């Protein structure tokens, strides 16, 4: 069965009911209990995590492993207890993205990734020491860095 919701960014959006992801605790400081992932920029690696019940609530996300080869997720003990997730086995992982006009300034939040499994999603704290709140998504190739 399909579900149609309104988006201030994309107008009326139709999705399949099974594509609705329940976030029992919402996103930290933002709320939203039901989201879906929209592929509006095919081929770029960016998806939109869009609230189904709030037309204005949507965040760009990427898969951390696609952009950060050394990304590691160590779920905080209190989050493990709260979500029942010991690790990310069998889960889809995403990180939120701060979009900026200059691609080199785009950052991803590796500190609080989104873990989605079996239709349920959670924003958890990543205890990995290298997990930055604002990790640059892109870097210039070495030769361009030297030239500039």
């Amino acid at each position, binding site marked *: 069965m399909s579900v149609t919701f309104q988006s201030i960014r994309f107008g009326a959006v139709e999705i399949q009911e099974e594509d609705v992801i329940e976030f029992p605790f919402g996103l930290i400081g933002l709320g939203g209990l039901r989201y879906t992932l929209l592929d*509006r920029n095919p081929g770029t690696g960016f998806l939109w995590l869009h609230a189904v019940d709030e037309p204005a609530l949507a965040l760009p996300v990427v898969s951390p492993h696609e952009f950060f080869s050394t990304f590691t997720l160590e779920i905080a003990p209190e989050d493990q207890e*709260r979500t029942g997730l010991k690790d990310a086995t069998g889960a889809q992982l995403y990180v939120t993205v701060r979009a900026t006009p200059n691609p080199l300034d785009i950052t991803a939040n590796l500190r609080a990734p989104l873990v989605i499994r079996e239709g349920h999603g959670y924003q958890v704290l990543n205890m990995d020491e290298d997990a930055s709140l604002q990790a640059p998504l892109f870097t210039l190739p*070495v030769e361009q860095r030297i030239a500039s």
Partner: protein
Amino acid sequence: MLILTRRPGERVVIGDEILVTVMGVSGHTVRLGIAAPEGVPIYREEIWLAVKEENRAAAEASADALPATPPETGTAQPAQTPAGEPTQTPADEQAADP
């Protein structure tokens, strides 16, 4: 704001289900033990504020804010190594290997 004075070992009860225990005080540091129902998220304030700010900033993006083409074809490339570290290609490795 309600302000209470408590000694180590004493507690504060919030509602019927949240118990905050002062575990100990050492200099300027207070250790708290918090018992809350499963599902009540508990964060250190600075982490909560920082993540909230990142979420809020991310949610401000307009529909056309993202790169329209895969950035690999543009001037940028995915940050496959932590920022600031030079990328080593397999060719570099071979060259370094006598």
